[in-house]
């Protein structure tokens, strides 16, 4: 039974059959051809049997394994590897169909390989998930055929595996290093204000050339009769809350990933950096009501808590209620904190409905309102219009883009910090804002 199940035919088989039919039809007119065709028919049968024998001689001559991480990082390319090893005595050709999780909607994942006797080959590829959650990998289907190429034998290899797609921890690690070493201005990401005016006194140390001589501690120098200098450190233990709007406006996808997931990824990155800098990171999510509040803390396990928390976020994309958010923050976040609010406004009027609550939040905390540039609109603006209707469409697009700027101005007019960013650059822009605010001592 298994033999029949794993028995497949190639296109060559059908081409051969077609050729034989054609030959026999010609043979109807020219009997000599019919004789040749008959010979060929028996030859083809022999080849078919031979090919089948070659493929089925050994019981399990092919081994494959898929190597992948237990967790995938959302929105990033995640590497996978399939290792193929065979024991056929001749060169074989293999078509590999990897059963990918349904979320990818990829139906044509096919790899074609040629393996010499005893050769081991790796297939390396990567996948970019755009949704958090459980992903089910199936088995690996491999179809093997020989040089004769009439029969294909299917092997069902490997093990099914479930993988959890987490908020982007790859980005988290990447930006962690860059932020700690002040390298965000490198690799062309963005300029960053150098941390200068640190507030908190740390220690007195010997002056070395290059130190800021304005900070020489003269009393200490007199005592030690050598130049001593005050050293400061960045302020620590400030609270940084990532507040994620899970409402209707956050559903819009860019490059397949929703704004919500961009926000979740950025929250993870910024929380990690805040923790590394000695601050406390917390998390608030809301839609029509506040769904979860993770109090800010700088414990060791806080980052893990935040990761799990972000992983579990679900939403119905309801209309966001900022009054609920304000009430909740008022009650639960008592210490002045940096509030990074990830949201999206489409128009000035929709902002004005919420402005009251934002201003109230800003009175108590340092509010940074983060919303998104519409890159699709931007693309439209940057293309030529070829008709009058095209000009109109472009005009409307420009109006929409301009309105985003007005929203930003309106917020800034009320002393609220803003970030208007393309979804892709969200994480970088947020980090820079955080570092800037910190160095300016605004929290």
């Amino acid at each position, binding site marked *: 039974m298994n033999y029949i199940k794993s*028995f*497949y*035919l190639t296109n060559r088989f*059908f081409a051969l*059959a*077609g050729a*034989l*039919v054609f030959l*026999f*039809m010609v*043979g*109807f007119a020219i*009997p000599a051809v*019919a004789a040749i*065709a*008959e010979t060929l*028919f028996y030859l083809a049968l022999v080849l078919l049997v031979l090919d089948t024998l070659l493929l089925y001689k050994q019981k399990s001559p092919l081994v494959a394994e898929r190597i992948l991480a237990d967790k995938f990082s959302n929105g990033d390319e995640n590497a996978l590897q399939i290792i193929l090893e065979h024991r056929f005595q001749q060169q074989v050709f293999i078509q590999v*169909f990897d*059963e*990918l999780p*349904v*979320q990818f*909607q*990829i*139906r044509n994942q096919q790899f074609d390989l040629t393996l010499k006797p005893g050769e081991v080959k790796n297939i390396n590829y990567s996948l970019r998930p755009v949704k958090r959650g459980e992903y089910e990998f*199936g088995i690996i*289907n491999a*179809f093997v055929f020989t040089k004769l190429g009439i029969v294909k034998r*299917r092997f069902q290899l490997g093990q099914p595996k479930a993988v959890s797609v987490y908020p982007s921890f790859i980005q988290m690690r990447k930006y962690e290093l860059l932020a700690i070493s002040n390298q965000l201005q490198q690799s062309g990401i963005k300029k960053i204000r150098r941390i200068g005016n640190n507030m908190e006194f740390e220690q007195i140390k010997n002056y070395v050339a290059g130190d800021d001589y304005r900070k020489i501690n003269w009393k200490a120098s007199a005592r030690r009769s050598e130049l001593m200098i005050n050293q400061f450190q960045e302020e620590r233990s400030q609270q940084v809350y990532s507040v994620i709007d899970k409402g209707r406006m956050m*559903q*819009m*996808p*860019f490059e*397949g990933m*929703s704004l919500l997931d961009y926000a979740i990824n950025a929250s993870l990155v910024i929380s990690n950096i805040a923790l590394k800098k000695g601050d406390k990171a917390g998390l608030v999510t809301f839609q029509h009501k506040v769904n979860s509040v993770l109090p800010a803390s700088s414990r060791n396990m806080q980052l893990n808590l935040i990761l799990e928390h972000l992983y579990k976020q679900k939403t119905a994309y309801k209309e966001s209620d900022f009054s609920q958010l304000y009430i909740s923050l008022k009650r639960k976040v008592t210490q002045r904190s940096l509030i990074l609010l990830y949201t999206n406004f489409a128009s000035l009027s929709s902002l004005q409905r919420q402005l009251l609550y934002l201003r109230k939040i800003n009175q108590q905390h340092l509010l940074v309102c983060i919303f998104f540039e*519409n890159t*699709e*609109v931007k693309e*439209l603006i*940057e*293309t*030529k*219009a070829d008709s*009058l*209707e*095209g*000009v*109109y*469409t*472009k*005009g*409307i*697009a*420009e*109006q*929409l*883009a*301009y309105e985003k*700027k007005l929203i930003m101005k309106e917020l800034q007019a009320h002393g609220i910090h803003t970030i208007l960013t393309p979804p892709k650059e969200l994480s970088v822009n947020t980090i820079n804002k955080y570092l800037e605010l910190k160095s300016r001592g605004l929290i």
Partner: protein
Amino acid sequence: MKDKKYLIFFIAIITIYVVYEMQKPTPEDWTVTFHHRDRIPFGTLATHDLLKDLFDQQEAPSSFKTMYELVEQEEIEDNLLVLSSELVLDENDFSSLLTHVEKGHAVFLAAQDFSNRLEDSLHFETYLEQRLNPADFTQIVNELAEETKTRVRFAQPNGNEKTFIFPSLATVAYFSKVESDSITEMAWREDGKPVLIKYNSGQGDLYLSTMPLAFTNYFVLQEETSAYASSLLSLFPEEESLVHVEYYQMGKLESRSEIRALLSYPALRWAIYILLATVFIFLLFESKRRQRIIAVIPPVKNATLEFVNTLGQLYHNQKNHKNLAQKRILFWKDYVRSHYTLRTDKLDEPFKLELTRKSGAEKTTVFALVELIERAEANNMIEEGELLMMEKLMNEFYGIA
């Protein structure tokens, strides 16, 4: 939930229809086939069972070949029973028939009507009192339901006489003229008209009957009439085998497919068989799955562009060029302010020069654009051409290729 409701409704309708169809009495099929596999009244399944009993055969053989093929080509040595509504024999068939009889075999022809060739050669005529429409079953049913019966007197070769009672339907034909010395009458209706005659030729016997229906299931299974068929069949020698020739009613059963003509050429036969086999194999093997089913999840769409396009069409239908120009100018001014940090409240000569210097755009472009903007702001109406011109100049200014 709603879908389920519909499903239940649908299933209920189908069930009701099926029950209705099952309750409906199936109309009896009164087609005259004389076919040995038919259970219908005028088939001969029961007759063949009878044949098996009478002749001690495992299987009462049937043939779908012509008399000529059987006698001249296959040279069979069996006795023959031919049942037909209308028996039409051509030249070859007729001569083969005579040859077969002369060789000493028995042949029984039963038909309501015989072809002229047969009648002329053997010097007899038949008369059909009432021709039934074979497709009109109700007529047949009515005819059988009527109580009109006919007695048939049968003189057996051993001298005994037997009488059978038949519905008139079975006895509508008779031999109206029998003019040959070599013919013996063997059975008569009650009005004296012969319904069975024997033609002596050589060593064999040729029997002709005008009551073919007597051999059908209907009459064979009825008590009153079943003995008639068996009496007639016992005219055949018991130890010799009997073949039922169905050709003259059913035709050549197997020769109906036109592909048979092609199949008679070996090369084409190969081609067709390979083709059919390949198609079959293709269906069998290519329908197998190569990987598991991946359910379709529609991706969330970014509807911004649709939204912008719809709005654009809406404004385009209004054709308020001035309004649109204002929107574009606002955006342009913001662009100038944020990119080149220039004030845009006064679009004067120094502004234009400074903008040219800072933007790196052609001087003519900048001057033309600013002039167009000033004109658009000053006038109440602007023309379609100006709007298109503005698009062109702005593209040049923004550096959109």
